[in-house]
Structure formats: C-alpha cells, structure tokens
C-alpha cells in the first residue's frame, strides 16, 4: 500500500512531485497516469502496474523547456516554486484536453492545485499564453 508519491521520490529519486498536505487537497504531488491528472499521494503503487506515469521531470526535452514551462518562466508563474511542478503537470494536462481554454476553464482546470504565493494571476497568464494567447 505504499503511496505512489513515496515510490517516485524515494525509489526513483524523482523529487519533483512534492508532499504538501498528504490529503489530496493541494495538488503539489500531481502526476499524470494514463493521460489523467491525479494526486500521487492518494494512489497506492499497487494500482499503477502497467500504467504510464508522467511526472514534471518528463516535460522538458534536454535543455528545451515545454512551452508551458517556458511561459511560466516568462510570465512569473513560479515564485517559491513548491507548487510549480504539480501546477505545470495540471496545466499541461489541461491544454492537452482543452487546447484553447477560456479563462474560466483555466481556473477550473487548476482548481485542485493550491498556490500560496502568486494569487494565481500570473499562472493564468502563463497558461493562456502557452495555449496561444487571447
């Protein structure tokens, strides 16, 4: 019943996913499993056998950042950075499901990722820009 979050961080040394709350409220542990964003702190690793898991470490290609990561840099979407991996995972997943989201859809899509530093404004700007701007 080991948590997927712990297996990622301790066995695979993929420390991008963070533990912020241990209750599936903050989204700092967000990863994508078979195309769906989930809180890895709530997933027993036994349930992911055979699944494809995508973590924050998988988005950049070498030195080239994913366009969402680049947007976060340009628009100030990250301050302390602790929520950022989960936020970017959720944002990338949102854009894959909904390539041209409205502002309301961006807000909804990120509602499960808490950020205490930014007030979300620049996160929305970054995601909207990555989606192709308005």
């Amino acid at each position, binding site marked *: 019943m080991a948590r997927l979050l712990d297996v990622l*961080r301790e066995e695979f040394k993929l420390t991008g996913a963070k533990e912020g709350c241990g209750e599936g409220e903050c989204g700092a542990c967000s990863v994508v499993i078979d195309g769906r964003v989930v809180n890895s702190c709530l997933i027993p690793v036994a349930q992911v056998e055979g699944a494809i898991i995508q973590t924050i470490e998988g988005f950049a290609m070498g030195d080239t950042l994913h366009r969402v990561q680049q947007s976060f840099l340009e628009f100030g979407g990250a301050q302390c950075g602790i929520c950022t991996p989960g936020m970017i995972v959720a944002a990338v997943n949102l854009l894959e499901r909904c390539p041209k989201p409205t502002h309301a859809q961006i807000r909804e899509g990120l509602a499960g990722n808490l950020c205490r530093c930014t007030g979300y404004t620049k996160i929305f700007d970054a995601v909207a820009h990555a989606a192709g701007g308005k």
Partner: protein
Amino acid sequence: MTQRAPLHFSLRKEGREKVTGKARYIDDLDFPGCLHGTTVRTAVPRGILKGIRFEGDLPWHEFTIVTAKDIPGKNYVALILHDQPFLVPTDGGRINHPEEPVVLLAHPDRHLLEKARRAVKLDVEALPAVFSIDDSLAKKHLIWGDDNVFKKYRVEKGDVDAAWPKAHLIVEGVYETGAQEQLYIENNGMVAVANARDGVTVWGSMQCPYYVHKALLPLFGLPEEKIRIIQAETGGGFGGKEEYPSMLAGHAALLAWKSGKTVKMIYDRAEDMVATTKRHPSRTRHRTAVDAEGKLLASEIDFVIDGGAYATLSAVVLSRGTIHAAGPYLCPNVRIHAKAVATNAPPHGAFRGFGAPQSIFALERHMNKVAKACGLTPEEFRRRNFIRDGQMTATSQTINEGVDMNRVLDRALEMSGYREKRERFARENPASKVKRGIGFATFMHGSGFTGSGERALGSIVGVEATREGRVRVLAASTEIGQGTNTIFSQIVSEALGVDESLVEVAQPDTRHVPNSGPTVASRTVMIVGKLVESASLGLKQTLLQSGFLSEGYDSAAFREGCAAYIGKHGELKSFSQYKQPPQIHWDDEKYQGDAYGAYAWAAYVAEVSIDLTTYETRVEDFVAVQEIGRVMHPVLAAGQIEGGVAQAIGFALYEKVVWKDGRMMNGQMTNYIMPTSVDLPPIRVAFEEVPYGYGPKGAKGIGELPMDGPAPAILNAIEEALTGLPQASGFGCNEIPFLPESLMKVLEKHRDSV
C-alpha cells in the same frame, strides 16, 4: 488578462530549476543513512509534567531519545525575552500550551518512529488555562509574568483629553481579527549533523539563517564558528519561517548530537498547522472625534493582540501594529495604548504584515463608520483627512515623501470604476437576489525595521568577484519566492555594468555569508538591496583605483581586471554595512519620531457580490494601486501584490482557525480553507513611483503592504452591498474572517426576533 511578458526584464534567477522540478527543497535532499526525527507533544494546554512513560512493545533501545535533560547548554530559544524552552523541562516542568514539545525521538525507520511517538505517554497535572484576550486581561489566571502582559506601548500626540469636549461628533467601534495560518505549501523541515568536535550544521527551510544561528548558540554552548546554518530552497515562508525554524533546527540538532548521526525532521501538514506559529488575533477599540467639517480632531485607540503562551516576537508585532494603527491621516491628537497578552495557545508569530493588517483592518472599517456618522462618503471623508507632506503622523514623524494620497486614490477609483459601480449597484440591488457592493481602503506600510531597528541590526552584505569575472553576492537574505536572487543579481548587474548571467547569489550559509539581517519586514530590496548596490559600487571603485580597470570598461576588460587583481591580492571582495540615514530620529522610550525611513502608500478597491440564498460573499474584482518608490522588476513586484492580496482575501473571508482549549481543531487543508483559483477574482495592479533616496534606485519595500488593504476594503464593500436591506441596518461587521455563517446571523436576527 493575457499580457505580453516584458522580455527585457530578467527571468527569475532560479526559475528554470523551479519549472523543471529540479529545485531541491530540504525533503528532496538525500542524506544516506540519516535518522528520522519526531516530536512527542502535550495534549494539555497548561500543567505540570509529572512523568514520561514509554509503553508498547517497541525496541526502545534502537531509538535516540532526547528530553530537556539532554540539552548540553541552555534550554531556551534565544529571540527577545528568551522565555520559550526548546523542550518542556522534565521533573515538574511547566507546560504552557497544547502541542508543546516534550520528547524527541529518532530512528532510521520512519514508520516505526511514528508508532513510537504514539507510544510515549505523558503524565500531566492539569492547571487551569486562559484562552481569550479578555480572560488574560482580567487575569483570570496568571499564566505569564505577573500580569499576563508581554509588552505595552503608549503613543501620545497632542492632548486627546482636551479634544473630546470640542468634538462635533464622537464615534466608537470595536474590531476583531482572528488567527491565520501562513500555509506555505512546503512544511517546515530541517536536517542536522552535530557533535562536540565538529560543531553543529543544519540545513533547512527558513527565512533567517542567522536567527537560527543565534538560537543554537546557547542551546549547545558552542562558539559562533562551530554553528553553521544553511538555507535550502524554501517553499514559501510569509513569516511562518521567520522564528519557528529555530525551534525545529534545535530539535533536529539535539537528536543529531545525542545519536551521533544525521537527523532529518520534516513536519507533515497536520503537525505544522497545529504546532507552529499563526498570525496574532487582535481586538482594537476606536474612539474618534471629528469637527463639523468631518476632520479628525482626536483619536484614541486601544490595540490588543493575543501572543499565545510565550513572548517570542509579540513585542515587535505589537510595535508595528501600534505604529500603523492611526493610518495615513492627519489627526492632531492621538493616543494609542497597546498590549500583547498571553494565552495558553502555541505562541503566535510573524505573518506578513506583522500587526499592521490587524490594526489597519480596524482603522479602515472605523473610518467608514466615522464617515457615515458625518454624512460624508467614504471617499470624501478620506480626502479631507489624508496626511500631506510637512504634516505629522501619530508618532510625530513629519512626512516628506512627495506622495499624494489623493492621486493614489484617484487612480484606484478610476481603475475600478468605483463611482459608476457604486451608483449602479445602489440602483440595481433592490431588485436583485444577488447584492453587489464596492468598497476601498487607504493605507500606508513602513519599510524595514522600525525606528532604530535597522541601526541595531547593522546589516552587512558582501560582493565577491572571481578570476573569470563572475560576481557573487554574499548575503544572508533568503529567496523564499519573492525574488531575492533575481533582484540582487539585477542590482549588481546595473551597478557593475556586467551581464546578469555573470552574477550569482551565494546560498545563504552562515559560514560563507555575512549577516544581512532577517528576510522580513519588507526590507530585502530597500535595505539589503541598497547594501548590495553599495558593495558592488565599492568593488568597482576598488578595481578602478587599483589600476587594473579603467572607466568605460566592457565585460572582457572587467574579467581581465578581476583576474589581474586577484592574481595580485588573492581575492576581490567588497563589503557594505548599513548606516542609518542621518535624518531618521526615533525615541524608543517615548515611541516617538521617525518610525520608518519610508512608507509605501496604497489604495485598494474590492468589488463583491453577496448571494442571499447562501450568504456567500464573492470578491468579483480587485484593484490594488500603490506608490512604492521604484518598480525594480514589474513581474516580481506585481507578483508580490497579487499574492499578498490573495492571502488577505483568505484572511477576510475564508481562513478561520477553529480553536478548542488552545488547540487548532481544523489542522488539515480540507478544513482550513484557503481560496482556490476559482474563488479568487482578477487582481489588477498598478504602481506609482516617487523615489526614496535611500533605497536602491529609489525602491521602497512592498512585501507586506498588500496584506493590509484587502480585508477592510472587502468588508467596506459588503456593507455597501447590504445598504438598503432593513435587516442590515446598523451592520457593524467588525470581525474577520467574515464567514457566510456570520452574515446569515446579521441578516436573520432581525427577522427571527419579529
């Protein structure tokens, strides 16, 4: 609203690591073979520790067990009054709050450790406890000192008593604010190595490495150079990691000392919420006299904050709240009496704003009440009373900043559509099930430590060049998300004329950086940034005077000059130490004079909608206009305002700490309600710039400012929205957080009593 990112401003220095998940916070760092540490805490709020029992079928011999008896030096957390112990003394030690630490345990197996924690039982003789400001003031029980009062201040200007009889009107009000949890998304965590031969090294999440350093000195009785504190990448602080980390660092170090091993202690959310500091709850009483034109004649303010069980930083929180209590207004006669009192809750501590959000909430709600009593609009009342250059504040500081509050307010009202909306809402509300309102708050916030505080700190910054022409900033100021690394690099780059890519900021490590003071009090840009600037200019001077560099140099010449200088002298470093600007005069005894070198000035406007079915208030739009000296970096500056406004919206409408006998009962993110992305409005920010001579390029501090304005602006808007509802007449709404449950009571009490 999407805007083009201004690409000619630098990207966040450590941004790439943060967006790729490569940034390593303390729990991400690998310390092979380390032990995990945990804390056994009291359940009882006040009592005498009679015994500690180790129950359960556990291999206790495998555990490192630390109690107060194991402390090599002295058992207090050095801060101001040194009254807080690291661990409750054994054998009859006093317990003064729930969750007070008693026993520390360490073991390689984290899960077994948790079982052990639950198996340690404390025998406590309970004593009666105090949980409210009133009970503390009334000395229901004496729980601290001889009168439960940590600190008192009294500020006097003019003659308040002589003014009352001359008043055209006198208006009174009482305002309360609740505790607020900082809720950084990264919990507190520390890793320590400690032994008598090598000393103590601690890595961790923190804002102030030198505070931790200072606290561990008496704990271990070691000389300064044997204690080394290193800040790891820190996931938010907001004041919650100003003083508390000293406690956790001491705990990890004590376990490391006793076990001879590296010890890692990371709190989970539940422990972090219930055991660490929160914003001080407050109660403010206002009594205000005005003349027939609605001008302030006299103001008497009684400001009380609840400090929890130990003094910690309450005296300073009280100070800031006191100085900000009378606001950006001209009032010839002022008396402020302020107290910080003890209760049996975990000590309250630093949280962005540090006393000012509390006293400013009261003031800005009260100013609206006074305006109404005078028959003036909130706007007109403010304009008649704004302080101007040449006039004196409550502490008799003559303002000379060249700032015009009318202009700041103009801009905020214009950006928010205030007048048009106010009129429209008044027209449309009667027929609408959803009531709308718009309200504002005007305020100022002092940058840096109060009065002689900066002089007492004597902050030092170093700048060092390498042979390759790279420049490193040496400062204890930490990056906690606000942009320290980026701004310092920018300052050096501008001062030296070298590309930012060649500048780096050294990791705050007390072995390698001087004490530039704590990362608090909105001082990092204005005070420390100025030192970074002057140290850089000093470095440049040194090179120029050495002959290894001439004016008008390019980066190649700079590199060669550094290499040559270092070749000859071995190193190239320049230091700068804070000197108080000569015109700042402050009297600590009388609490009079120039409280701050500079203030940022602001007007914030909140638009709300109230759903009368559910009594929920939603902030629909928010405008924040502030004058801040100089905008050093538009993205970082706006980011600070937006984030602070979001936290303050939480303070006003969502974030309630549910207390039971001194213990936080809703210590989970499910039940402590922070606004999500769908709860917050668009936050629109604008800046004015009137440069301050002693800030780098004229910059003032802005980190805490945005915490002050939203709560009163929102409640002022709620009051507007409810105008015209008969059951809301006499609406006081004077307490935050203002929950739907509170609004329901306000609106329904009238109906039920019929």
